[in-house]
């Protein structure tokens, strides 16, 4: 089109140019436009952070939990798929795992037969709690032993292992599987405490000075949901244990077998 235009139109262009040319935006409106873009960017960033925190950490956490449980399972001796005989004599001695290492699996039959969460040593956030694991307070007893085997887990985000903790009632089973045995605990009490009330993980829960005579398990997580103002605590007492080579707890056997 422009090639076809005769050279004589040059003068016409000069006349038309002021009409066609876009007015440059004033410096004020450019600053306002830039500030608006920055504000929109900040809003989108905050929105993306919420999406990441509420959705993506769960996706990652569940994957990490499943792979950690599967990895631990490979190292176990073969477990016959029959109900094992519950024993109440002195359980095997469990030694502390290395900091951050996954050493046990937590099962809660009331949360589904597929519910299995890896328990790692320590309650470090980046390597344990935010990596889809339940964390064992290192200063507390080992699984099945006299004392208070205490673990912490997320109630929402990062795989939310303890999301349904408020559904646990007295008598519900919490089962810990180590490399040697299943430890079947039964819920005794649940409580809501302040974050600084460390006596809930004392060897005798609630009584820091006392000498333990029972094997307890304590779960800690945040409360209320989406807040860290308080802690939701569930205590459970060892009911019996089953050697891995002997079978499984009846509650974890697949239906119909």
């Amino acid at each position, binding site marked *: 089109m422009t090639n076809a235009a005769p050279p004589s139109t040059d003068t016409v262009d000069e006349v038309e140019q002021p009409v066609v040319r876009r007015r440059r935006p004033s410096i004020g409106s450019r600053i306002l436009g*830039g500030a608006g*873009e*920055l504000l929109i960017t900040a809003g989108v*960033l905050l929105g*993306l*952070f919420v999406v*990441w*925190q509420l959705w*993506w*950490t769960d996706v990652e956490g569940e994957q990490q939990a499943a792979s950690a449980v599967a990895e631990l399972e490979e190292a176990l001796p073969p477990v016959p798929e029959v109900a094992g005989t519950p024993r109440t004599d002195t359980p095997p001695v469990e030694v502390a795992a290395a900091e951050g290492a996954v050493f046990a699996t937590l099962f809660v039959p009331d949360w589904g037969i597929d519910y299995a969460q890896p328990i790692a040593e320590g*309650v470090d*956030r*980046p390597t344990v*709690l*935010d990596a889809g694991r339940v*964390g064992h*307070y290192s200063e507390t007893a080992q699984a099945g032993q006299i004392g208070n085997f205490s673990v*912490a*887990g*997320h*109630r*929402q*985000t*990062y795989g939310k292992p*303890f999301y349904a903790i408020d559904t646990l009632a007295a008598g519900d089973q919490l089962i810990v599987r180590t490399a040697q045995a299943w430890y079947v605990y039964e819920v005794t009490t649940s409580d809501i*405490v*302040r*974050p*600084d*009330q*460390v006596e*809930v*993980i004392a060897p005798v829960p609630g009584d820091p000075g006392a000498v333990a005579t029972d094997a307890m398990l304590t779960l*800690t*997580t*945040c409360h209320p949901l*989406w*807040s*860290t103002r308080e*802690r939701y*605590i569930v205590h459970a007492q060892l009911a019996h244990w089953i050697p891995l080579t002997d079978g499984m707890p009846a509650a974890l056997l697949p239906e119909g077998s």
Partner: protein
Amino acid sequence: MYGWIFTHLPGPAWARVIQSAILVAAVVAALFLWVFPAVAPYMPFNDQTVGEG
């Protein structure tokens, strides 16, 4: 800023739209993989343990 980036991308409009989408995906991936995990511990929520409060 975004207008400046769009006008400085090479190629026709459809190619610039695709390049913009790739840029946005890269930024979101970087945020999800590195930036958000790095800032999350400083957020005032998600603490499940007792004794550290």
